[in-house]
């Protein structure tokens, strides 16, 4: 593999897709860095698949520009897609052909060098021993793996996976995650579209949150999570007294007892670190034993819900 580092592997500008009056993808500016696992996260119907279909030339764009691997699409679509592997929605195959034959068909379209990758791709996804069975006898998990093998025929710099874990059992999902991280470790870029927050959080380094066809936030998972509410968790020897003390503190917006302790939420304009230090001192001075005192890390799910609920309120 020969992968240039340091540039965006996918770039879109003002990318728009309309179906009549309905706008499925609304002026999306997307920047996917090379060598990362990038999550394209949004609820069902947010326009994720439509964006992927435009990138891959499966449907035309109504407006905007796209670049894949530095090449303008659709002008240089053929050259760009030569090093792109993709699974769009559920991977489809000729059921009357075997797994190996299905790969042969795709390799024929990709060129002679792709034929040499068939055996390696089958082995990599663990299908070498079942490659000569007809695909119509494959389980959904096997089809997903065959879809990945098919993507690998391109020796892809970029893998585009649209809801890749749909229908997989927990073991399959776990295996899939490990496989994707393996691709990233090799220097490939993975663009993963999903409506599953947990999945994106576990697999991806960067994420774009999309809603109603628009990218509403984009950045690293850590940055996005950190941009949420500032909250700490405290457990003490007397929760009732602690809650009363905390409620009087100027920096505290709310203090609520929960199973894991007292969840203390600061006012948005407060610098959380000195405020937390001050709270700790006051609790100790009040004679309370502190058993737990830590920042409550906002999950991507919390952040996602914050963002989307704000959008709903604004609508």
């Amino acid at each position: 593999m020969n992968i240039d580092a340091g540039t965006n592997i996918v770039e879109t500008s003002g990318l728009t897709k309309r179906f009549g009056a309905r706008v499925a993808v609304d002026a999306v500016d997307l920047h996917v860095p090379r060598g990362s696992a990038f999550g394209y996260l949004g609820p069902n119907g947010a326009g994720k698949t439509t964006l992927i279909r435009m990138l891959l030339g499966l449907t035309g764009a109504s407006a905007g520009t796209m670049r894949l691997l530095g090449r303008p699409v659709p002008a240089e679509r053929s050259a760009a897609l030569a090093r792109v592997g993709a699974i769009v929605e559920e991977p489809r195959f000729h059921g009357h052909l075997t797994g190996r034959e299905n790969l042969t068909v795709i390799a024929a379209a990709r060129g002679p060098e792709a034929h040499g990758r068939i055996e390696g791709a089958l082995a990599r996804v663990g299908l070498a021993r079942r490659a000569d069975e007809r695909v119509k006898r494959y389980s959904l998990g096997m089809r997903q793996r065959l879809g990945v093998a098919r993507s690998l025929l391109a020796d892809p710099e970029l893998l585009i996976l649209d809801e890749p874990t749909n229908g997989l059992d927990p073991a399959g999902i776990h295996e899939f995650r490990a496989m994707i991280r393996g691709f990233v470790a090799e220097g490939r870029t993975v663009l993963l579209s999903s409506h599953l927050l947990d999945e994106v959080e576990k697999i991806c380094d960067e994420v774009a949150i999309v809603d109603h066809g628009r990218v509403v936030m984009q950045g690293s998972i850590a940055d996005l999570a950190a941009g949420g509410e500032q909250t700490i968790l405290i457990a003490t020897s007397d929760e009732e007294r602690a809650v009363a003390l905390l409620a009087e503190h100027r920096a505290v917006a709310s203090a609520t007892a929960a199973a894991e302790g007292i969840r203390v939420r600061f006012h948005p304009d407060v610098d959380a670190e000195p405020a937390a230090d001050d709270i700790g001192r006051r609790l100790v001075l009040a004679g309370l034993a502190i058993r737990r005192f830590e920042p409550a890390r906002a999950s991507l799910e919390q952040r996602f819900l914050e963002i989307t609920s704000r959008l709903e309120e604004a609508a």
Partner: protein
Amino acid sequence: MSTTTATTSLSRRLTRVPRRPRLVGAEFLKLRKRRGLVLSTLALTVVPMIIAYTVLLILHAANPAKYGPAGGLENFSGSMELLSQLGIVAAILVGATLGAGDQSSGVFRELVVTGRSRLALLAARVPAGLGLVLTAVGAAFALTAGASTVFAGSSDIPGAGLLVSSAAWLALVTGLALVLALGVSSALGSRGTTIGILLGWQLIAMPLLLQFGALGSLREGLLEAATQRLEPAKLFEGGVTVPMSLTAALAVIAAWIVVPLALGAWRTCTRDA
């Protein structure tokens, strides 16, 4: 041209040459692995010829005074008429499957994602389809030609010239049916609809229109009128023939190749995958 340039150019040519055959090979693989389709094709081409000559042999053996030899020119002519009609049906089945197979299975999308030109994907289907249809029709023709010669007895046998021209004509009519079906099914994206439309057209509408004298020279635009113009004279005597020049017949045939393929290509290139 420098040596390096020449070597690069040759190397490019060498690496490009196998791509089209690979694509054609892949299309042929998809076809030949469809057992039902292959069996149907054989059932419409080879099997009827085996049955026909077996029946003729039995009849002749049972009552030579009433039934002449199984072979000979007359039976060859009859067999060719049957084979051409059934061959066209087989070609329609194969062409319709080729044109709509990727679309209906969802694999068209996966092929487009490779970046390969949609036109190249369509173009590869033509030789692949011809490969299957002409193999089956060719085997049936060989059987017919052999049987009509071997079992001719005292009857006239078809001469070498007639055999060659008959084979070429059979290849033409079945090949045209394949291209027509491929183009229509690529445009419609539906195998079943294509088969329904084309069988209705080929077996009912076109023969009726050919006999409808009031249409006058408009009938020259019908494919069957053009192919009848090219058929060996000794094969089909007494059929309805629309008088037309050889040039006109060739032009009509060319139009029946180009128009459906162009429609299929346009739809293949413009449809959402």
